């Protein structure tokens, strides 16, 4: 045992005044009694019966000296060296992903992980610093390079597991930042595995504390509703990640009503699929796994026993082609798209009151533009962007494209030739998809919440319509211009993913109801509203509000786990970090376990014992303790 602050031991010199106080003769209070005869008999009796009673005062002195000794030792912070997993500059990555909710270790894997993290913090040596990173779908540093054990333990205690997929790449980036340039840093992963195949390397030493023992888990691994020949089709998958065959009941609720329930037997490692035809007008679906009666199926992770889906049926987009002379390339293409109803009108004809989903202009433009999506070919000067005459690019000039843009997926524009185009500048709200000689050919963007695509050339002045890229490009653009819902996100939304809500023009506010009925509101910017609080699994409702029409319901979206990495709760024996294999770590480092809380508790106990010894059995109010020692001698009577 050693001391962290041995200087405090010098306080033991305080024993001297205590002893001196005891050596000074006790000043007694004078009190008259009718006779001392009985008192003398009593004192004679006591000395005859229990001589050790005379030592009582000395016992008090001993107790007080012991109390002082304990307090001095506690202040000097004694510690014991204990074997620990890591010491020095430690970065702890605490896995808080959905799989850590598994209950194969009681009460849960995450609580077990917190216990291990607390142990690491407790046994932190004096010069060690610890950084705590909570690895969930949005990893965060919950304690930064701290040696304060209380702060660290408070941070660990306040950590909560998520229901999302751990973002290890981001966590490793945070860990790399925390380790920084420290030479011998150690990263401790407290996890049940579930790292991606390829994870970036970490500087310094990497140690792995595996959590969890079992793998039995059934999961709803997919749920979706798609249009089918006889109506919307519900597709559900149940995967058994365990090592034994498992029976389960898959219950399917549509719009909150029980639609179907069936018992499934899933072989280990296999997936059972269920396809059902639902009714027209179905909106929400929920799949729930529950154990059949009388069958003991172990399923350690309840978070993935539910799946959610929302049906967004394809909508027919009404498109108005505004052109005076017509354009065969455009009209034929629009007529060929499924789900598109094209109409044609002269440019300056009065617009029908029922708005269309998309307005297409070719070579001319209305004096007053409708507040809806616009596709503009060969624009004349207008209010949306600047045009500076025309230009004719050289024949040899190549078209450059924004290759990473999803709108250019499968589109090859390298062989496109342009005879002439208008000399437009890409406005601030737009992005150029293709350009030539530094001047934009195609650009798109969102202006005042309407989507706009501009071709700066007449299709008849180029060979684009003759190329295979043309229908693909137009398909991508039309799909982007006429989305089926105001909610745009990936097909599967995982916890932590962001969802963009693009309300109609004029709607200023968006409200989102989480599955637990919590209401989130968001202001709407030019690009719509971005919602990222998708921390719960379930179906979220979206409403929009405008000053004119008030609030209205806008749609649903579903947040699902649907992750093999999280549902496969089999704890990993080794982790692959960078190129290294990391096995479960042993306690081969020396930590310091501080003992002062125990010493302080002992001091408190001694204090209570001393108090008890002094007042043993006495119920009198005016017992003069230390007070009596210094009390002025009471005069005469």
């Amino acid at each position, binding site marked *: 045992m050693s001391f962290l602050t041995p200087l405090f031991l010098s306080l033991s010199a305080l024993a001297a005044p205590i002893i001196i106080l005891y050596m000074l003769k*006790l*000043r*007694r*209070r*004078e*009190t*008259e*009694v*009718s*006779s*001392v*005869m*009985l*008192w*003398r*008999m*009593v*004192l004679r*009796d*006591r000395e005859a019966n229990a001589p050790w*009673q005379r030592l*009582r*005062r000395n016992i008090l002195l001993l107790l007080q000296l012991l109390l002082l000794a304990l307090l001095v030792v506690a202040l000097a912070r004694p510690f014991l060296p204990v074997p620990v997993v890591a010491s020095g500059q430690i970065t702890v990555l605490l896995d808080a992903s959905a799989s850590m909710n598994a209950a194969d270790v009681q009460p849960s894997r995450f609580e077990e992980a917190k216990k291990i993290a607390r142990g690491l913090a407790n046994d932190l040596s004096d010069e060690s610093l610890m950084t705590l990173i909570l690895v969930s779908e949005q990893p965060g540093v919950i304690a930064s390079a701290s040696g304060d054990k209380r702060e660290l333990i408070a941070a660990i205690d306040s950590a909560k597991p998520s229901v999302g997929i751990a973002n290890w790449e981001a966590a490793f980036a945070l860990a790399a930042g925390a380790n920084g340039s420290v030479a011998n840093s150690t990263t401790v992963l407290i996890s049940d595995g579930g790292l991606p195949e390829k994870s970036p390397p970490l500087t310094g030493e990497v140690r792995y504390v595996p959590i969890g023992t079992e793998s039995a888990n059934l999961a709803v691994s997919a749920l979706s509703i798609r249009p089918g020949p006889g109506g919307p089709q519900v597709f559900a998958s149940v995967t058994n990640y365990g090592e034994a065959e498992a029976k389960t009941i898959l219950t399917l609720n549509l719009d909150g009503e029980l639609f179907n329930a069936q018992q499934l037997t899933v072989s280990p490692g296999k997936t059972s699929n269920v396809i059902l035809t639902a009714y027209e007008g179905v909106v929400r679906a929920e799949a729930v796994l529950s154990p059949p009666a009388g069958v003991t199926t172990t399923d350690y992770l309840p978070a993935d026993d539910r799946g959610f889906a929302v049906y967004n049926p394809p909508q027919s987009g009404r498109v108005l082609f505004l052109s005076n002379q017509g354009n065969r390339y455009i009209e034929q293409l629009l007529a060929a798209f499924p789900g598109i109803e094209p109409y044609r009108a002269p440019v300056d004809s009065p617009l029908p009151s029922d708005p269309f989903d998309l307005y297409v202009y070719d070579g001319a433009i209305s004096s007053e533009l409708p507040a809806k999506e616009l596709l503009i070919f060969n624009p004349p000067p207008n209010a949306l962007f600047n045009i500076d005459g025309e230009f004719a690019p050289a024949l040899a000039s190549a078209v450059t494209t924004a290759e990473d843009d999803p709108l250019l997926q499968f589109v090859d524009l390298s062989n496109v030739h342009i005879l002439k185009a208008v000399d437009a500048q890409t406005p601030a709200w737009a992005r150029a998809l293709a350009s030539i000689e530094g001047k934009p050919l195609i650009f798109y963007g969102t202006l005042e919440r309407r989507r706009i695509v501009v071709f700066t050339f007449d299709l008849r002045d180029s060979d684009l319509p003759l190329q295979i890229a043309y229908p693909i490009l137009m398909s991508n653009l039309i799909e982007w211009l006429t989305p089926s819902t105001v909610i745009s996100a990936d097909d599967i939304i995982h916890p932590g993913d962001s969802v963009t809500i693009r309300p109609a023009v004029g709607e200023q506010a968006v409200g989102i109801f989480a599955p637990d009925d919590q209401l989130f509101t968001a202001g709407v910017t030019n690009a719509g509203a971005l919602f990222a609080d998708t921390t719960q699994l379930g179906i979220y409702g979206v409403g929009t509000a405008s000053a004119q029409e008030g609030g209205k319901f806008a749609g649903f979206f579903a947040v699902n786990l649907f992750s093999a990495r999280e549902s496969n709760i089999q704890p990993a024996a080794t982790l692959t970090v960078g190129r290294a294999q990391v096995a479960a770590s042993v306690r081969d480092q020396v930590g310091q376990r501080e003992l002062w809380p125990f010493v302080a508790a002992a001091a408190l106990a001694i204090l209570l014992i001393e108090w008890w010894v*002094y*007042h*043993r*059995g*006495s*119920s*009198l109010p*005016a*017992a*003069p303790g230390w007070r*009596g020692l210094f009390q002025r001698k009471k005069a005469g*009577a």
Partner: protein
Amino acid sequence: MLFDESTLRKLDQLALVAGRVRAGQMKGERRSTKRGMSIEFADYRDYVRGDDLRRVDWNVYARLERPFIKLFEEEEDLAVHVIVDASRSMNWPPDSMSGDADSAKQRNKFQYAVHLAAALGHIALAAGDRLTVTAITGGGLPTTRFGPTRGRGGTARMLKFLGDLKPEGLTDLDGALRNYVIASHRAGLAFVITDLFSPAGYQSGLSALQSKGHEVGLIHVLAPEEVDPPLAGDLQLLDVETGDPQDVSVDGPLRDLYKRRVQSWRDEIEAHCLKRGAHYVPVTTDTKWDQIVLYQMRRMGIVK
């Protein structure tokens, strides 16, 4: 005045009881061991020369033709001695103690002892007994004495005498009682009212009284503060009578020990008295004095 009218009326109903009947000097209201002139028939005996012929039972002579003398019980008075300890230790708790002066006065041992003495004296006078009241104070000599007196007329004087007593000086109970015996009094019923705070002891004094032929009633008066002392901490106790100091550190166990010691002290005295055929009446002054006389002493057969 020590008593009010109703208390006196109650005391009038009482009479002192002596266990062994004693020879008296004057005709009183008590049975005597002496056979003599009264109306209570006791026995016959043979006539001898010189007997008063008036006392021959002629009816028996007529039947048996032998003269018998009729013997009658003699009724006579009883000598009652009330000895009050008037040392300084009896003046406890003092008026200054424990705030409430009235309650302190009520619990004052000396006042209590005076009340008891007055009650016993009144009972004795009312019953036509011969009463002597003595206060023993400092120096071991009985300095003040009332009586002997007979008859109800003495009550007022006795009360005045008791009212004028002051508790003073040191007690040597043994010496005082021995001196009392030497001063040659008629044997009778002797009540000793004291706190027994007498380091020299009380046994030889009681023995001296008993050897003179007295029937002894020891009324042991203690204040509640002496049975359960309200003391704690490091104290220097000063004896109010002798002025002796005693250092003591009072804590819970010591207080318990003290209480046990007081009890065992009383038990010792009681055992001593029982062995010698003396009455022992332990009294704490928080009990009403008339309850002692009207109930407790009656229960013990000292009064009837």
